[in-house]
Protein backbone atom coordinates (compact mmCIF):
# COMPACT_ATOMS: atom_id res chain seq x y z
CA UNK A 1 0.00 0.00 0.00
CA UNK A 2 1.87 3.13 -1.10
CA UNK A 3 2.15 6.05 1.29
CA UNK A 4 0.77 9.37 0.12
CA UNK A 5 2.89 12.46 0.65
CA UNK A 6 0.83 15.27 2.13
CA UNK A 7 3.74 17.66 2.12
CA UNK A 8 7.48 17.35 2.55
CA UNK A 9 7.14 16.62 6.26
CA UNK A 10 3.97 14.50 6.47
CA UNK A 11 2.86 11.23 4.92
CA UNK A 12 -0.46 9.42 4.97
CA UNK A 13 -0.69 5.64 5.09
CA UNK A 14 -3.83 3.75 4.21
CA UNK A 15 -4.78 1.31 6.95
CA UNK A 16 -6.58 -1.74 5.59
CA UNK A 17 -8.10 -4.55 7.68
CA UNK A 18 -5.78 -7.52 7.84
CA UNK A 19 -2.68 -5.52 6.96
CA UNK A 20 -0.35 -4.02 9.51
CA UNK A 21 1.73 -0.89 9.27
CA UNK A 22 4.65 -0.29 11.62
CA UNK A 23 5.65 3.19 12.63
CA UNK A 24 8.06 4.83 15.00
CA UNK A 25 6.34 5.12 18.35
CA UNK A 26 4.70 8.50 18.83
CA UNK A 27 5.00 9.53 15.19
CA UNK A 28 1.24 9.59 14.53
CA UNK A 29 0.01 13.10 13.79
CA UNK A 30 -3.62 12.39 12.91
CA UNK A 31 -5.83 9.58 11.72
CA UNK A 32 -9.14 8.96 10.02
CA UNK A 33 -11.49 6.04 10.56
CA UNK A 34 -11.04 3.28 13.13
CA UNK A 35 -7.32 2.92 13.69
CA UNK A 36 -5.63 1.37 16.70
CA UNK A 37 -2.04 2.00 17.77
CA UNK A 38 -0.38 -0.60 19.93
CA UNK A 39 3.24 -0.63 21.03
CA UNK A 40 5.11 -3.38 19.24
CA UNK A 41 7.03 -5.08 22.02
CA UNK A 42 9.12 -7.06 19.61
CA UNK A 43 9.97 -3.83 17.80
CA UNK A 44 8.67 -4.95 14.44
CA UNK A 45 8.77 -8.13 12.46
CA UNK A 46 10.11 -11.59 13.02
CA UNK A 47 9.26 -12.50 16.61
CA UNK A 48 11.42 -12.71 19.68
CA UNK A 49 14.66 -13.85 18.08
CA UNK A 50 14.64 -10.91 15.68
CA UNK A 51 13.92 -8.65 18.61
CA UNK A 52 16.96 -9.92 20.46
CA UNK A 53 19.02 -9.43 17.32
CA UNK A 54 17.89 -5.85 17.06
CA UNK A 55 18.57 -5.19 20.72
CA UNK A 56 22.07 -6.57 20.41
CA UNK A 57 22.65 -4.58 17.27
CA UNK A 58 21.27 -1.43 18.88
CA UNK A 59 18.82 -1.08 16.00
CA UNK A 60 15.75 -1.33 18.20
CA UNK A 61 13.96 2.00 17.87
CA UNK A 62 10.58 1.71 19.60
CA UNK A 63 7.89 0.89 17.09
CA UNK A 64 4.13 0.62 17.20
CA UNK A 65 1.69 -1.43 15.20
CA UNK A 66 -1.01 0.44 13.32
CA UNK A 67 -4.11 -1.61 12.53
CA UNK A 68 -7.72 -1.04 11.61
CA UNK A 69 -9.58 0.60 8.80
CA UNK A 70 -8.89 4.14 7.68
CA UNK A 71 -5.71 6.13 7.29
CA UNK A 72 -3.00 7.48 9.55
CA UNK A 73 -0.74 10.48 9.09
CA UNK A 74 2.84 10.38 10.27
CA UNK A 75 5.58 12.93 10.81
CA UNK A 76 8.35 13.44 13.32
CA UNK A 77 10.35 16.35 14.58
CA UNK A 78 9.68 18.46 11.48
CA UNK A 79 12.10 16.31 9.51
CA UNK A 80 11.77 15.85 5.81
CA UNK A 81 10.17 12.58 4.86
CA UNK A 82 10.95 10.52 1.84
CA UNK A 83 8.86 7.58 0.66
CA UNK A 84 10.14 4.59 -1.25
CA UNK A 85 8.09 1.82 -2.87
CA UNK A 86 10.03 -1.42 -2.81
CA UNK A 87 9.33 -4.00 -5.48
CA UNK A 88 11.36 -6.91 -4.23
CA UNK A 89 14.70 -5.25 -3.54
CA UNK A 90 16.24 -4.43 -0.16
CA UNK A 91 16.39 -1.04 1.49
CA UNK A 92 19.20 -0.31 3.98
CA UNK A 93 18.37 2.41 6.48
CA UNK A 94 19.25 3.30 10.06
CA UNK A 95 16.49 2.28 12.48
CA UNK A 96 16.17 5.75 13.96
CA UNK A 97 15.50 7.22 10.53
CA UNK A 98 12.63 4.84 9.84
CA UNK A 99 9.28 6.55 10.21
CA UNK A 100 6.80 3.94 8.96
CA UNK A 101 6.75 0.86 6.80
CA UNK A 102 4.36 -1.76 5.48
CA UNK A 103 3.95 -4.82 7.65
CA UNK A 104 4.40 -6.95 4.55
CA UNK A 105 8.11 -6.08 4.40
CA UNK A 106 10.68 -8.42 5.90
CA UNK A 107 12.73 -6.63 8.49
CA UNK A 108 16.28 -7.57 9.36
CA UNK A 109 19.54 -6.22 10.67
CA UNK A 110 22.81 -6.29 8.84
CA UNK A 111 26.33 -6.06 10.14
CA UNK A 112 27.94 -3.36 8.06
CA UNK A 113 31.38 -4.54 9.08
CA UNK A 114 30.86 -7.54 6.84
CA UNK A 115 31.26 -5.25 3.87
CA UNK A 116 34.67 -3.76 3.52
CA UNK A 117 36.44 -5.43 6.43
CA UNK A 118 38.13 -3.16 8.93
CA UNK A 119 36.91 -0.05 7.14
CA UNK A 120 33.38 -1.38 7.55
CA UNK A 121 33.90 -1.33 11.28
CA UNK A 122 35.41 2.14 11.19
CA UNK A 123 32.43 3.29 9.11
CA UNK A 124 30.13 3.12 12.10
CA UNK A 125 32.52 5.25 14.13
CA UNK A 126 33.06 7.83 11.45
CA UNK A 127 29.43 8.25 10.53
CA UNK A 128 28.15 8.19 14.08
CA UNK A 129 25.90 5.38 12.94
CA UNK A 130 26.24 1.99 14.48
CA UNK A 131 27.89 -1.07 13.11
CA UNK A 132 24.51 -2.41 12.16
CA UNK A 133 21.80 -1.15 9.90
CA UNK A 134 18.20 -2.16 9.41
CA UNK A 135 17.15 -3.86 6.20
CA UNK A 136 13.68 -4.00 4.73
CA UNK A 137 12.99 -6.39 1.87
CA UNK A 138 10.01 -7.39 -0.22
CA UNK A 139 7.11 -5.47 -1.70
CA UNK A 140 5.75 -2.46 0.10
CA UNK A 141 6.26 1.13 1.10
CA UNK A 142 8.71 2.73 3.49
CA UNK A 143 8.83 6.28 4.81
CA UNK A 144 12.10 7.52 6.28
CA UNK A 145 13.36 10.81 7.63
CA UNK A 146 16.16 13.07 6.56
CA UNK A 147 17.42 16.47 7.57
CA UNK A 148 16.53 18.92 4.84
CA UNK A 149 15.23 16.65 2.10
CA UNK A 150 17.04 14.08 0.02
CA UNK A 151 18.38 13.67 -3.47
CA UNK A 152 18.27 10.26 -5.09
CA UNK A 153 21.45 9.37 -6.91
CA UNK A 154 21.46 6.34 -9.19
CA UNK A 155 24.28 3.84 -8.75
CA UNK A 156 25.13 2.16 -12.01
CA UNK A 157 27.74 -0.18 -13.31
CA UNK A 158 29.47 2.73 -15.05
CA UNK A 159 30.97 3.98 -11.83
CA UNK A 160 30.59 4.25 -8.08
CA UNK A 161 28.96 7.13 -6.24
CA UNK A 162 30.82 8.67 -3.32
CA UNK A 163 28.86 10.05 -0.41
CA UNK A 164 29.83 12.03 2.66
CA UNK A 165 29.22 9.56 5.51
CA UNK A 166 27.35 12.21 7.48
CA UNK A 167 25.03 13.00 4.56
CA UNK A 168 24.30 9.35 3.77
CA UNK A 169 20.70 8.42 4.62
CA UNK A 170 19.83 5.09 3.02
CA UNK A 171 20.37 2.99 -0.05
CA UNK A 172 18.58 0.29 -1.93
CA UNK A 173 19.32 -2.38 -4.46
CA UNK A 174 22.30 -4.59 -5.06
CA UNK A 175 24.90 -2.23 -3.71
CA UNK A 176 28.24 -2.72 -2.02
CA UNK A 177 29.45 0.03 0.25
CA UNK A 178 32.97 0.69 1.31
CA UNK A 179 34.50 3.43 3.40
CA UNK A 180 37.39 5.12 1.68
CA UNK A 181 39.85 7.41 3.36
CA UNK A 182 41.64 10.31 1.77
CA UNK A 183 43.77 10.82 4.82
CA UNK A 184 46.98 12.61 4.14
CA UNK A 185 49.35 14.59 6.29
CA UNK A 186 47.21 17.66 5.65
CA UNK A 187 44.30 16.02 7.44
CA UNK A 188 46.56 15.14 10.34
CA UNK A 189 47.70 18.70 10.90
CA UNK A 190 44.14 19.94 10.69
CA UNK A 191 44.40 21.54 7.28
CA UNK A 192 42.32 19.01 5.43
CA UNK A 193 39.53 19.71 3.01
CA UNK A 194 37.03 18.29 5.47
CA UNK A 195 36.33 15.40 3.13
CA UNK A 196 38.65 12.86 4.67
CA UNK A 197 36.22 9.95 4.64
CA UNK A 198 33.83 8.97 1.91
CA UNK A 199 31.43 6.12 1.43
CA UNK A 200 31.89 4.48 -1.91
CA UNK A 201 28.76 2.77 -3.21
CA UNK A 202 28.99 0.53 -6.23
CA UNK A 203 26.70 -1.89 -7.98
CA UNK A 204 23.15 -1.29 -9.10
CA UNK A 205 20.67 0.72 -7.09
CA UNK A 206 19.94 4.09 -5.57
CA UNK A 207 21.49 6.04 -2.72
CA UNK A 208 19.60 8.68 -0.76
CA UNK A 209 21.66 11.66 0.31
CA UNK A 210 20.40 14.42 2.59
CA UNK A 211 21.06 18.12 2.13
CA UNK A 212 22.87 18.34 5.41
CA UNK A 213 25.70 16.82 7.35
CA UNK A 214 23.78 16.69 10.56
CA UNK A 215 22.28 13.68 12.28
CA UNK A 216 18.57 13.71 12.96
Amino acid at each position, binding site marked *: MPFTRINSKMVEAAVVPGQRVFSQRGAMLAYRGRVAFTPSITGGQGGVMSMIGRRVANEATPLMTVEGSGSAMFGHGGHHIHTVDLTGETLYVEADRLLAFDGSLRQGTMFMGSQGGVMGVIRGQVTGQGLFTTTLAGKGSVAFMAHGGVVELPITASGPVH*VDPQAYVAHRGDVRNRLTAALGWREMVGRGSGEAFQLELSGNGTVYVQA*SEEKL
Partner: protein
Amino acid sequence: MANFRLQGTRVLAVDLAGDAVKAKNGAMVAYDGEMTFKKMTGGGEGLRGLVTRRITGESMAVMEVRGHGTCYFADRATEINLVRLDGGKLFVEASNLLVTEPSLRTGTTFTGLRGASQGNGLFTTTVEGTGQAAIMSDGPAIVLRVSAQTPLVVDPGAYVAHTGGLRQQLQTAVGWRTLVGEGSGESFQLRFEGEGLVYVQPSERVTVGGQL
Protein backbone atom coordinates in the same frame (compact mmCIF):
# COMPACT_ATOMS: atom_id res chain seq x y z
CA MET B 1 32.98 25.56 -17.51
CA ALA B 2 31.44 24.28 -14.31
CA ASN B 3 27.70 23.83 -14.70
CA PHE B 4 25.61 24.67 -11.63
CA ARG B 5 22.26 22.88 -11.25
CA LEU B 6 19.95 23.11 -8.26
CA GLN B 7 18.46 19.79 -7.16
CA GLY B 8 15.45 21.02 -5.28
CA THR B 9 16.32 24.05 -3.19
CA ARG B 10 18.87 22.60 -0.79
CA VAL B 11 21.28 20.59 -2.90
CA LEU B 12 23.54 22.01 -5.59
CA ALA B 13 24.90 19.76 -8.32
CA VAL B 14 27.99 20.97 -10.13
CA ASP B 15 29.10 19.25 -13.33
CA LEU B 16 32.84 19.32 -13.76
CA ALA B 17 34.87 18.33 -16.78
CA GLY B 18 38.41 18.58 -15.53
CA ASP B 19 37.88 22.05 -14.13
CA ALA B 20 37.55 23.14 -10.53
CA VAL B 21 35.29 25.08 -8.20
CA LYS B 22 35.92 26.62 -4.81
CA ALA B 23 33.58 25.37 -2.11
CA LYS B 24 33.01 25.73 1.59
CA ASN B 25 35.12 23.20 3.46
CA GLY B 26 33.27 19.95 4.06
CA ALA B 27 30.19 20.92 2.05
CA MET B 28 30.39 17.95 -0.33
CA VAL B 29 27.60 15.46 0.28
CA ALA B 30 28.13 13.12 -2.66
CA TYR B 31 29.87 12.78 -6.00
CA ASP B 32 30.16 10.47 -8.95
CA GLY B 33 33.19 10.28 -11.18
CA GLU B 34 36.66 11.27 -10.06
CA MET B 35 37.06 14.16 -7.63
CA THR B 36 39.88 15.53 -5.55
CA PHE B 37 39.44 17.83 -2.56
CA LYS B 38 42.18 20.23 -1.62
CA LYS B 39 42.14 22.66 1.26
CA MET B 40 42.65 26.27 0.31
CA THR B 41 42.82 29.47 2.24
CA GLY B 42 39.93 31.89 2.04
CA GLY B 43 39.81 35.65 2.36
CA GLY B 44 41.94 36.31 -0.69
CA GLU B 45 45.06 34.83 -2.16
CA GLY B 46 48.70 35.57 -1.61
CA LEU B 47 50.48 37.38 1.20
CA ARG B 48 47.96 40.20 1.30
CA GLY B 49 45.20 37.64 1.70
CA LEU B 50 47.08 35.99 4.51
CA VAL B 51 47.47 39.24 6.38
CA THR B 52 43.85 40.26 5.91
CA ARG B 53 42.71 36.84 7.07
CA ARG B 54 44.74 37.13 10.22
CA ILE B 55 43.53 40.62 10.96
CA THR B 56 39.92 40.30 9.95
CA GLY B 57 39.06 36.89 11.24
CA GLU B 58 37.03 36.49 8.03
CA SER B 59 38.88 33.24 7.50
CA MET B 60 36.64 31.22 5.31
CA ALA B 61 37.67 27.59 5.11
CA VAL B 62 37.60 26.79 1.41
CA MET B 63 38.46 23.74 -0.59
CA GLU B 64 39.17 23.29 -4.25
CA VAL B 65 37.12 20.55 -5.87
CA ARG B 66 38.55 19.35 -9.15
CA GLY B 67 37.55 16.43 -11.31
CA HIS B 68 35.36 14.79 -13.89
CA GLY B 69 31.75 14.08 -13.01
CA THR B 70 29.10 15.60 -10.80
CA CYS B 71 29.70 16.84 -7.28
CA TYR B 72 26.80 17.54 -4.92
CA PHE B 73 27.02 20.26 -2.28
CA ALA B 74 24.78 21.06 0.67
CA ASP B 75 25.24 22.57 4.10
CA ARG B 76 23.01 22.10 7.17
CA ALA B 77 19.91 21.90 4.95
CA THR B 78 20.01 25.62 4.20
CA GLU B 79 18.44 26.94 1.01
CA ILE B 80 20.77 27.59 -1.89
CA ASN B 81 20.54 30.59 -4.21
CA LEU B 82 22.43 30.96 -7.46
CA VAL B 83 23.94 34.33 -8.24
CA ARG B 84 25.35 35.15 -11.68
CA LEU B 85 27.95 37.85 -11.75
CA ASP B 86 28.86 39.74 -14.91
CA GLY B 87 31.85 41.67 -13.76
CA GLY B 88 30.05 42.87 -10.66
CA LYS B 89 30.81 42.42 -7.02
CA LEU B 90 28.92 40.31 -4.51
CA PHE B 91 29.14 41.03 -0.80
CA VAL B 92 28.33 38.03 1.35
CA GLU B 93 29.18 36.67 4.77
CA ALA B 94 31.81 33.94 4.52
CA SER B 95 29.51 31.54 6.35
CA ASN B 96 26.85 32.02 3.64
CA LEU B 97 29.09 31.36 0.66
CA LEU B 98 28.82 27.77 -0.62
CA VAL B 99 30.45 27.42 -4.04
CA THR B 100 32.12 29.79 -6.52
CA GLU B 101 33.46 29.29 -10.00
CA PRO B 102 37.24 29.55 -10.32
CA SER B 103 36.88 32.62 -12.53
CA LEU B 104 35.61 34.54 -9.52
CA ARG B 105 38.02 36.24 -7.13
CA THR B 106 37.25 36.30 -3.44
CA GLY B 107 38.46 38.90 -1.01
CA THR B 108 37.62 40.69 2.19
CA THR B 109 36.16 44.15 2.81
CA PHE B 110 35.72 46.29 5.86
CA THR B 111 32.07 46.81 6.69
CA GLY B 112 32.35 48.99 9.70
CA LEU B 113 29.98 48.88 12.59
CA ARG B 114 27.42 46.93 10.57
CA GLY B 115 29.27 43.70 11.03
CA ALA B 116 29.49 44.09 14.75
CA SER B 117 25.75 44.55 15.04
CA GLN B 118 25.17 41.43 12.98
CA GLY B 119 27.43 39.35 15.10
CA ASN B 120 29.46 38.69 12.00
CA GLY B 121 32.56 40.65 12.67
CA LEU B 122 33.73 43.83 11.05
CA PHE B 123 34.58 42.30 7.71
CA THR B 124 32.69 40.60 4.94
CA THR B 125 33.67 38.49 1.97
CA THR B 126 33.54 39.85 -1.56
CA VAL B 127 33.21 37.82 -4.73
CA GLU B 128 34.21 39.56 -7.93
CA GLY B 129 34.36 38.76 -11.63
CA THR B 130 32.24 36.87 -14.12
CA GLY B 131 30.66 33.54 -13.28
CA GLN B 132 28.33 31.81 -10.92
CA ALA B 133 28.28 31.68 -7.15
CA ALA B 134 25.99 29.76 -4.83
CA ILE B 135 25.03 31.42 -1.57
CA MET B 136 23.07 30.01 1.33
CA SER B 137 20.17 31.38 3.29
CA ASP B 138 18.14 30.17 6.22
CA GLY B 139 14.84 29.64 4.39
CA PRO B 140 14.23 30.77 0.79
CA ALA B 141 15.78 34.18 0.22
CA ILE B 142 13.97 36.99 -1.51
CA VAL B 143 15.80 39.39 -3.78
CA LEU B 144 14.90 43.04 -3.30
CA ARG B 145 15.84 45.70 -5.81
CA VAL B 146 17.21 48.97 -4.57
CA SER B 147 17.08 52.01 -6.83
CA ALA B 148 17.84 55.66 -6.39
CA GLN B 149 14.17 56.39 -5.63
CA THR B 150 13.62 53.42 -3.33
CA PRO B 151 16.19 52.82 -0.64
CA LEU B 152 15.80 49.65 1.38
CA VAL B 153 16.04 49.00 5.09
CA VAL B 154 16.84 45.46 6.26
CA ASP B 155 17.13 43.77 9.63
CA PRO B 156 20.85 43.01 10.07
CA GLY B 157 20.01 39.45 11.14
CA ALA B 158 18.00 38.79 7.98
CA TYR B 159 20.56 40.28 5.59
CA VAL B 160 22.37 37.65 3.51
CA ALA B 161 24.19 39.32 0.63
CA HIS B 162 24.06 42.15 -1.85
CA THR B 163 25.29 43.03 -5.32
CA GLY B 164 25.66 46.21 -7.27
CA GLY B 165 26.69 49.73 -6.35
CA LEU B 166 25.12 50.05 -2.96
CA ARG B 167 26.07 52.18 -0.02
CA GLN B 168 25.15 50.67 3.27
CA GLN B 169 24.69 52.37 6.52
CA LEU B 170 23.74 51.12 9.95
CA GLN B 171 20.96 53.11 11.53
CA THR B 172 20.13 52.88 15.18
CA ALA B 173 16.92 53.60 17.00
CA VAL B 174 18.16 53.00 20.49
CA GLY B 175 16.14 55.15 22.86
CA TRP B 176 15.33 55.12 26.55
CA ARG B 177 12.67 52.42 25.88
CA THR B 178 15.37 50.09 24.63
CA LEU B 179 17.41 50.71 27.74
CA VAL B 180 14.54 49.80 30.05
CA GLY B 181 13.80 46.69 27.99
CA GLU B 182 10.63 48.00 26.34
CA GLY B 183 12.11 48.44 22.87
CA SER B 184 10.51 47.25 19.65
CA GLY B 185 13.30 44.78 19.00
CA GLU B 186 14.22 46.66 15.84
CA SER B 187 16.87 48.92 17.26
CA PHE B 188 19.38 48.36 14.50
CA GLN B 189 18.63 48.49 10.83
CA LEU B 190 20.71 48.35 7.68
CA ARG B 191 19.93 51.03 5.11
CA PHE B 192 20.89 50.46 1.48
CA GLU B 193 21.05 53.29 -1.05
CA GLY B 194 22.05 53.28 -4.69
CA GLU B 195 21.41 50.68 -7.41
CA GLY B 196 21.57 46.99 -6.70
CA LEU B 197 20.02 43.85 -5.28
CA VAL B 198 19.79 42.71 -1.66
CA TYR B 199 19.19 39.09 -0.62
CA VAL B 200 17.05 38.79 2.49
CA GLN B 201 16.33 35.57 4.35
CA PRO B 202 13.08 34.82 6.22
CA SER B 203 14.94 34.23 9.45
CA GLU B 204 16.96 36.27 11.87
CA ARG B 205 20.35 35.31 13.16
CA VAL B 206 20.93 36.10 16.79
CA THR B 207 22.56 39.49 16.69
CA VAL B 208 23.46 42.08 19.24
CA GLY B 209 20.82 44.29 17.62
CA GLY B 210 18.19 41.59 17.86
CA GLN B 211 18.37 41.52 21.60
CA LEU B 212 17.84 45.23 22.01
